[in-house]
């Protein structure tokens, strides 16, 4: 067997990466060669707004909720990685003990894992991390002067 045989899929994938990046470079550079000469003026260079000059600078302020979602994503996505490894092997693990598996213990460990995870999910839910602008998380309205 040729030593490269196992690596062919990866070599092929690498070739695809090169081809795709090559295409991207062409697509990004060609219009500046084919298109009309670049001109600049004040209106063209202003940030897109409703037609009036912008009154506030950028980057705009945004809700802290986006950070919360990003953190929750990392927590729960790591758990998906664990479940994928367990899921692929599950049919081997669930076989009766005589047949080389673990029997129902294979399911029990996953259920315990999922229960701990679901406890975290319910906690996040109860504390309002999953609510966007619900009546609970909305700040008190200031009285108008």
């Amino acid at each position, binding site marked *: 067997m040729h030593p490269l045989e196992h690596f062919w899929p990866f070599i092929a994938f690498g070739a695809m990466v090169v081809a795709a990046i090559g295409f991207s*470079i062409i697509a990004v550079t060609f219009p500046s060669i084919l298109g009309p000469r*670049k001109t600049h003026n004040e209106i063209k260079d202003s940030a897109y707004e409703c037609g009036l000059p912008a009154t506030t600078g*950028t980057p705009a302020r945004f809700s802290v909720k986006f950070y919360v979602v990003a953190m929750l*994503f990392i927590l729960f*996505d790591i758990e998906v990685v664990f479940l994928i490894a367990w899921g*692929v092997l599950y049919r081997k693990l*669930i076989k009766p003990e005589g047949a080389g598996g673990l029997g129902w213990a294979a399911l029990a460990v996953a259920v315990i894992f999922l229960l701990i995870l679901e406890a975290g999910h319910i906690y996040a839910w109860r504390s309002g991390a999953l609510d966007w602008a619900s009546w609970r998380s909305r700040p008190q309205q200031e009285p108008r002067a």
Partner: protein
Amino acid sequence: MHLDGVILEWVFVIVRILAIFVITFMIVPYTVMAERWVCAWIQDRIGPNRTGWFGLMQPWADALKLFLKEDIIPHHVRKVYYVIAPTLVFLPALLTMALMPWGSNLGPMSCVLADIGPGMLVVFAVGACSVYGIVLAGWASNSKYPFLGGVRSAAQLISYEVCIGLSLVAIFMQTQTLNLTQTVLYQAANGWLVWQQPLAAFLFLICMFAETNRAPFDFPEAEQELVSGYNIEYSSLKFGLFFLGEYANLMVASMLMVTLFLGGWSLPFAPLNAPAQVWWVGAAHVAIFIAKTACLLFLFIWVRWTVPRFRYDQLMGLGWKVLFPLALLNILITAVVLGLRGGA
């Protein structure tokens, strides 16, 4: 494998890369075309019908126009990120195509470019990169609407990423593999997974609508709120790349759905439910795969012009409070059923 084998393998690699580009650049422009036709049909209009025969040359005319437009880079943008962002939307779709079994085999050549063992992990890894394109575009544009669009899009994509992973765990439990070719072979032998895992298929489809930023989840560009979202500051072919990337992602999402749930290139009867032995069966497999993909693309278009957009809090609520628990429940049900059958 001696030297001739290596040369042959390189020829196959190049042929398949060209095939991927041909498939992508035939399907994507005509998906845009189909979008406009179906939209016109649903809204009782005529739609584009002048360029070429029945308007069939319209997407090429549009592409040519984008090529020949002035390439404006406004002064207020962060230039490097501004330039690479549109390519980052498009690259993941092309790279995912490398792992897609778009046919069984044509003669001695297998139709998967890179048949990597745990292919689904690569699909997850590469697919997750498309969020960078949109976020970078929003941030690099240094302008309000793109920024809001980019941030919204990041939250939306990562929320539904979790549900995609969880809905597919049930599939992996059944097929015992992460390889896309093996998944298709499993379905050719045991029936399509959409019949065995209807809940997983439903969850995956909804997540794909969210991941491709399609209506009813098209928040990054919600026209009425953000004008056009993350891509307003772009012009010329850079805008075209966003457009292309969006539809390429749509195509890849449909192809993934076909591969994982709808039997890939197989049909459930005699010569078509096993890897091809003769060339015409191989050609039929490619045609079947593309036909299934086209049906799903039509579904995506149909939904866009039928269902109104969600509210943003409804979107996040649906992802975290409905789809996430349902996906866990589906894993549990699958585990119990497989356990009762003793893993067989």
